[in-house]
């Protein structure tokens, strides 16, 4: 398949000798305008790849922080067409930063798979992560998405053993997302030494970049993970920072965008410190 913004970004960072910072925020959280302002500010703050959550009422693999973000977004009127519109608006000012949509299958299925793929591609989406579509269900969305020129990024977990790993990596593109804990998002901190071994194991099976996430909250953790992985994913910590910036009615405050971008800048410094240490 053709090169996507994801492939280009990882190739460029490899040349620079550093890992990528992948940020996750929920589309439409706490409202459309603030969410778009955050997305637009992310690259300058240090995000190399942007993951945008597609809100869903029943996020079975997510912890309390991301559940709350999705419900805030839905309450403020989020829906799939608006998520795609947000990407479209982002793209008018940035044609280089990769955007990955992440979420659950039902809202895509109800939007209509074919229509979704056409509209997502046209809006400027580069990849998809759909939590409840394992390789066993590849015909649903993964194969049509690859055909449409989108990356389909799969999660590998501590329960994905060597026997199963090839099945998980088959049809995966863009990068592999290693879930560093057996658990829901944002509930436990990863153990950097175990993560290193897991990344090495995955790299024996693939040439794709390996991103590591679930539970990374601080610049120091980001630095440690960036030593051994090609990318560090941070989600719950950003969503929490956003949540804390809201007023008592759950509305965006004057510091909402900055609360997210400040933390992104800290995490980016952590990620960028890693390879300098490694290189010297």
């Amino acid at each position, binding site marked *: 398949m053709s090169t996507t913004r994801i492939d280009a970004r990882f190739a460029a960072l490899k040349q620079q000798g550093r890992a990528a910072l992948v940020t996750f925020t929920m589309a439409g959280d706490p409202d459309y305008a603030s969410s778009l302002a955050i997305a637009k500010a992310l690259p300058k703050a240090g995000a190399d790849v942007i993951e945008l959550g597609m*809100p*869903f*009422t*029943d*996020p*079975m*693999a997510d*912890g*309390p922080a991301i*559940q709350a973000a999705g*419900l805030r977004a*839905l309450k403020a009127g989020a*829906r*799939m067409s608006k998520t795609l519109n947000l990407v479209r608006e982002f793209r008018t000012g940035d044609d280089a930063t990769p955007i990955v949509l992440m979420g*659950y*299958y*039902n*809202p*895509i*299925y*109800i*939007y209509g798979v074919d229509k979704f793929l056409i509209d997502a591609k046209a809006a400027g989406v580069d990849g998809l992560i759909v*939590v*409840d*579509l*394992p390789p*066993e*269900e590849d015909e649903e969305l993964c194969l049509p998405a690859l055909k449409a020129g989108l990356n389909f990024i*799969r*999660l*590998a*977990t*501590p*329960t*994905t*053993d060597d026997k*199963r790993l090839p099945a*998980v990596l088959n049809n995966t593109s863009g990068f592999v997302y290693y*879930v560093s804990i*057996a*658990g*829901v998002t944002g*509930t436990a901190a990863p153990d950097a030494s175990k993560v290193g071994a897991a990344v090495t194991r995955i790299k024996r099976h693939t040439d794709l970049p390996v991103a590591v996430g679930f539970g990374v909250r601080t610049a120091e953790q980001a630095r440690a993970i960036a030593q051994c992985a090609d990318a560090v994913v941070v989600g719950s910590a950003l969503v929490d920072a956003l949540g804390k910036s809201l007023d008592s009615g759950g509305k965006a405050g004057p510091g909402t965008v900055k609360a997210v971008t400040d933390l992104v800048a800290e995490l980016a410094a952590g990620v960028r410190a890693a390879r300098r240490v490694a290189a010297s």
Partner: protein
Amino acid sequence: MSAPQPNSFRTGPDERGHFGIYGGRFVAETLMPLILELEQAYAAAKADAKFQAEMDGHLANYVGRPSPLYFAERLTEHLRKTASGLSAAGAKIYFKREELNHTGAHKVNNVLGQIMLALRMGKKRIIAETGAGMHGVATATLCAKFGLPCIVYMGAVDVERQKPNVLRMRMLGAEVRGVTSGSKTLKDAMNEALRDWVGNVADTFYCIGTVAGPHPYPAMVRDFQSIIGRETREQMQKAEGRLPDSLIACIGGGSNAMGLFHPFLDERSVEIYGVEAAGHGLASGKHAASIAGGRPGVLHGNRTYLLMDDDGQIEEAHSISAGLDYPGIGPEHAWLNDLGRVKFLSATDDEAVAAFQLCSKLEGIIPALEPAHALARVLDLAPTKPKDHLMVLNMSGRGDKDLDSVAAFLESKKK
């Protein structure tokens, strides 16, 4: 029905867990290896005569099976009187007495099978979700019997409206965790149980209470519940020398119904009715009837009919019966609906409570609110059938747990 008919309705699911377009395995990667392990372990247990014999022993001596097939004579006579102008009319009504099982409902049939499987797999910790609390009570009961720790997730709303069952679970040594996320009912309890499972993959067995969830659960739970239909077939043969003419059962997820229906699916002479909860009425939008008011979508590991908005967001179900208060239905029911093999009806809160009262007074059996929904449709179906029509209602649970809810409902109607 225009849909092409299969040679048999009893051969599903396929090896990937599909009933037509329904079913499947829509779960996070973390759970996928566990589900494959479960599928293999269940296939081995199913083929193991020793496992089956041990289960039969517990079903007889612990659960109290077989449950009787009871001729509901006064209800039959009552409905024959109301069939005015049709003197020959009025079906002969039987109850399959699942409410007489240990723990007071059909749920125990499935839980026994799953807990025995968990032991066989060496699992050390059991989790379950519950709505009305009957599945939670059955799981707590068997965990007590087999000495396993048990954690039951229950929506905070249900903890409130099904207090007696919460007390029972705690008395049995289970930990009941009230779920305050989302709509605080059964679907949220299921989300929370799945989150627990994702975080405790090494030692935990998830005991699902209905014929839903990722493959192999819908088929496995159906198999464990099919003893209801197998016994009914034998008992009816003994009582009347033939097959019944119709079967009727309430449907939330649909395990009691599937248990009764499955052994009869290929008997084309047998009419089969499932009754969903219509809550305040289908037109009100406040109901739990996934087939009547929903459409196919993907939730909790399977594709099936779901209540949702036009953006694919899951909507809250509404029913006086906590056991039917779920925005989905088992995938095999979805498939049988599309093929026209099972006819889906619904009953409102009002109709269910009226049937609850009538059955209590006419038969001396206080039904659970769940089968009271099916009973409500018996009240208008039976008078349309001839006198020699044999109709079987699955009396899937007893109503002790519902007395507070019904009293409060009747009180609110007075105002």
